[in-house]
């Protein structure tokens, strides 16, 4: 059996994610500089086959939409202030069903807040970012191996489901350097983007049983395509609330929710007879891992769930959580946003939150809550 030689380096997740996206076939990085996504910008300038500096975040996402409509897979990286400016265009790209990947590096808000301080405070904004309540796929890496695999899955999901996908990170996840054995990162294959068979006459938004219309780019010689951000029929022309057009809008939700098993990612470390479950995501996941290890070492039975597909919420997450009597959410924001997304704001003795604002949530602060 062939054994790999380990290769330890000091590395950050910005580099890992950038390389993974390029290996997955992403074509172009379009960016506007913002802390703490700076490293994505500088790595992408070195690595992407094409790199373009936008004059502002609205232009960035509009340009990306144009590239995507022309058949390219574009990527950007920003933080909340940039995301806020991109929001209208994010809705446009979602409605047009244009594949793209947006890396959001969370930092301390509100507003410009503290640009060089990490946070996990953008999740609820993203939960409602699509006007109408449709879900936007959001993946959140919890360590460097996740950074590699989820970047690839983000590109794959974007193309497979014709949708923007968010890779939700935070400052400490993508800027802190760690010793890491990069030989554990398996080489990635570019995502298949060959044109799938389609029913004639071709209609830009006519979908089959998989609920995802076959993508053809602008300027192609095969068929006329019409992308549209307004409510539209199968042809891609504006429809005034007719059944076909509204059906197309419903399909945006259905294509993701009915096939969520194809992009459900989580880590479940179950302990037999445990009644307590720690749930975490993103940068707080490592603190949760340490907290659970410490508790187990001291005889406490406790299980751990790290959510990696945050939205739409996979049914598997509820299925796991429902097996426990007491659940503690660990996250770096003021109120426990992931908890609120699953349970609302109502307090409960069974549902606890270990939160931190302004600094990283530590293992001991999670242990205190259990």
């Amino acid at each position, binding site marked *: 059996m062939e054994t790999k030689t380990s290769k330890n380096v000091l590395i950050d997740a910005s580099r890992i994610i950038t390389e993974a996206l390029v290996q997955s076939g992403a074509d*172009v990085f379009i960016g506007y500089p913002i802390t703490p996504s700076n490293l994505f910008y500088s790595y992408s300038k070195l690595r992407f086959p094409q790199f373009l500096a936008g004059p502002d975040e609205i232009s960035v996402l509009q340009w990306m939409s*144009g590239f995507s409509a022309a058949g390219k897979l574009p990527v950007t990286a920003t933080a909340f202030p940039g995301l806020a400016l991109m929001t209208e265009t994010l809705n446009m790209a979602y409605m047009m069903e244009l594949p793209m990947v947006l890396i959001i590096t969370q930092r301390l808000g509100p507003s410009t807040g503290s640009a060089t301080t990490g946070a996990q405070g953008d999740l609820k904004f993203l939960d409602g970012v699509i006007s109408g309540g449709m879900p936007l796929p959001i993946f959140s890496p919890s360590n460097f191996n996740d950074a590699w695999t989820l970047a690839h899955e983000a590109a794959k999901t974007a193309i497979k489901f014709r949708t923007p996908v968010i890779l939700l990170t935070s400052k400490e996840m993508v800027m802190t350097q760690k010793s890491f054995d990069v030989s554990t990162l398996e080489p990635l294959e570019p995502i298949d983007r060959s044109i799938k068979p389609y029913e004639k006459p071709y209609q830009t938004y006519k979908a089959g049983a998989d609920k995802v219309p076959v993508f053809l780019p602008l300027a192609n010689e095969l068929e006329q395509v019409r992308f549209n*951000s307004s409510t539209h029929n199968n042809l891609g022309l504006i429809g005034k609330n007719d059944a076909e057009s509204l059906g197309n809008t419903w399909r945006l939700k259905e294509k993701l929710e009915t096939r969520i098993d194809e992009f459900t990612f989580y880590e479940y470390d179950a302990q037999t007879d445990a009644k307590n479950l720690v749930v975490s995501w993103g940068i707080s996941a490592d603190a949760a891992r340490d907290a659970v290890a410490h508790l187990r070492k001291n005889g406490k039975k406790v299980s751990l769930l790290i959510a990696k597909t945050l939205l739409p919420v996979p049914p598997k997450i509820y299925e796991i959580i429902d097996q426990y009597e007491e659940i503690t959410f660990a996250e770096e924001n003021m109120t426990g946003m992931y908890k609120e997304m699953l349970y609302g704001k109502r307090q409960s003795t069974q549902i606890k939150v270990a939160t931190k604002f302004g600094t990283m949530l530590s293992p001991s602060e999670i242990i205190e809550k259990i």
Partner: protein
Amino acid sequence: MPFCPGCGHGISTRSISEALEQLGYGTKDVSIVSDIGCAGLVDPLFATHSIHGLHGRSPALGVGVSLGIDNSKKKTIVIQGDGGATIGLQHILEAARRNIDMTLVVFNNMLFGMTGGQMSGLSTNEFKDYKQSADEADPYDVVQLAHTAGAAYTRRVNHIANFTPALKEAIATPGFSLVELASLCTSYAMKKVSEYQEYIVEEEKFLNDRPVGHLPLRQTKPLIENMKGLDTLFGNNLNGRIGVLIAGSAGGGVQSAAQQLAQAGILAGLHSTMKGEYPITVGTGFSIAEVILSKDPIHYTGLEKSDVALIITEDGFKKVKDLLAPQTKVWIDDKAEIESNYTQKGFSKAGGKKGAALSAIAYWLNESGVFSPDALLKVVENHKYATELQEAINSYKKV
């Protein structure tokens, strides 16, 4: 036509179609990029590819379409109204600055026709007086602005007979072209073109002879494959985990010294992390770095309380003093003006301002015996400033 009877947008649309046909473009050669407003109703009138986006953003969308297609035989035609041209003015200037190969046609009826006839940034003062609008600010001259920004071809056309010839010229010009067409809104302006002509801006035309903007496709090198692996070359005497805080000021080499400590730790067979913190203005104020060294893999990378603190400046001390626990072993540079009982050492005297952090790290490594300062020397041996860095590391012997 989806437009009101007598609306000028129909003539403008037909003129674009005629220009494209006369220039020999086929339906699959053209992508129409439109946005919101009455001018945004054009998509179904073209048997070409189309993409219908957001109010005012079509020039930016068109930039992406044109660069994404990247084929001089294909044409990107962007259409927007005067309202769109002002909300998206930056997009027009950027497309012109880059001289992207596309043609923007502005249907200027001097008002927002879809929302009740409000004045726009392209409404002339004469027209605003006629509409009894109180706004006295002069209108934008989008033709002049795009020209100044670098567009290859810009032109305002008021007379219908000139629409198609002007559009042909614009479309045939490589690079960014803009044609502003006067358009009558019969619902909110007036019913007759002859009356409307009294309120519009005179025709003008400008040229810039500039190269067309392209986005080259590059061959790039992998970011990870080419990284040099850090094999274990040194031993260590660490049991468990230790957190080292290095606190100085911007320009003092704190971040790079901490990174070199973390790399040296890997050479000594340890796991390591390095986290930097500094103000958003990176060239001034404090510069803090946290390094964790551990026998076991490191998950949580925070440092609740440090085991070791190497304080180089007052700025650094102010920022980290709350992280210093009673058990923290602290060394402070003797040039730093800090009143405390902590041990003072001459790191900056020995290593200089830029080498003080490295000097302090090497001093601590030697004192603690966690691993040899030789690991630091190994890390920097191929650095472009290797000599200076080695001097700074070895300066610990003089501390």
